[in-house]
């Protein structure tokens, strides 16, 4: 094989390798039921302080990714607040994580749609990427041991929480 042919072969190999690497990396952030929930210490919203999902180990945690500009999130906030009010005595909590947003808008959203459950804030789309998120809102039910019990990529309503989330929580007790 001549030097020129070897060079061409190596160039083609590099391009194919790069494409394969790209394809494999795109699927790297997928998460699945039964796996440990992605977690990170984040600033509390509206602050001060920090928090993480791990702080609620021993409880069921319904993690809700939301953003102030997301219209379904506005309808979902009171639903989640009601769910939190009904279940907070059953070792269950809701944890909001604000993503892809700016802080002032997030604060304004919480003033307009007050929630009693804890809220954290992720800068940019870092947490969305960790959850393999495709948009907002998205909801993730986390078992008391920190594993994912349910992944719901969209808004929840009272019926969904009653039929899909509550049986999982009640079934464990």
């Amino acid at each position, binding site marked *: 094989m001549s030097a020129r042919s070897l*060079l061409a072969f190596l*160039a083609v190999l*590099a391009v194919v390798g*790069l494409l394969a*690497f*790209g394809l494999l*990396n*795109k699927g*790297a952030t997928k998460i699945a039921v039964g796996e440990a929930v992605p977690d990170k210490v984040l600033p509390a919203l509206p602050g001060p302080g920090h928090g993480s999902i791990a702080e609620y180990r021993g409880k069921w945690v319904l993690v809700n990714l939301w*953003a*102030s*500009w*997301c*219209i379904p999130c506005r309808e979902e906030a009171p639903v989640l607040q009601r769910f939190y009010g009904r279940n907070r005595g059953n070792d269950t909590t809701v944890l909001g994580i604000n993503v*892809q*947003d*700016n*802080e*002032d*808008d997030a604060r304004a959203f919480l003033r307009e749609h007050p929630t009693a459950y804890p809220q954290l804030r992720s*800068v*940019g*789309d*870092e947490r969305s990427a960790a959850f393999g998120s495709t*948009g907002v809102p998205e909801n993730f039910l986390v078992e008391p041991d920190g594993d994912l019990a349910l992944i719901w990529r969209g808004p929840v309503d009272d019926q969904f929480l009653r039929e899909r989330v509550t049986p999982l929580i009640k079934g464990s007790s």
Partner: protein
Amino acid sequence: MSFRSAFSGLFPDKAHRNVLCVLMTAAALATPAIAAGAPHPAPQTTVNAIEAEVMCPICGTLLELAESPQARREKVFVAKLVAEGKSKAEVKDALVAQYGPSVLALPKASGFDLSAYLVPILAIAIATVVLLFSVLRWRRSGRASEPSAADAAASAPQGEDAERLEADLSRYDL
């Protein structure tokens, strides 16, 4: 009823009237001074200049091309900072603090996006090596084709040709 008589009617005591006049005059003089002193910074950049250089992270496009709800909020945020007199670099810093580094139109230095940095470096390295080899080969082939002294002597005109050449040269000799 004149203004003067109405004023006197409201404030019959002259001392009170004088104090009130002084206060009103001071207020009238202070109002433009306060307005002039209010912070009104001149914009250091424009909304369009920023929007052409930053991303709508959710849409994956330049902010100036994006029309999603998130992009609209981001545009409001940019406009507010520009109106506050922030420079382009300050606005970009604030955007990164709020939306993360993906708001800058720069690829991540990890995963597949890393190739955006590596490929140009590799391409330059390969091009340099190819150029180096080409120059070396060209120089080698140039040296090989250079005629030697023996070749030059062998190719010199002989006999009649040499005489004719000598005659021609002497004819043009000045």
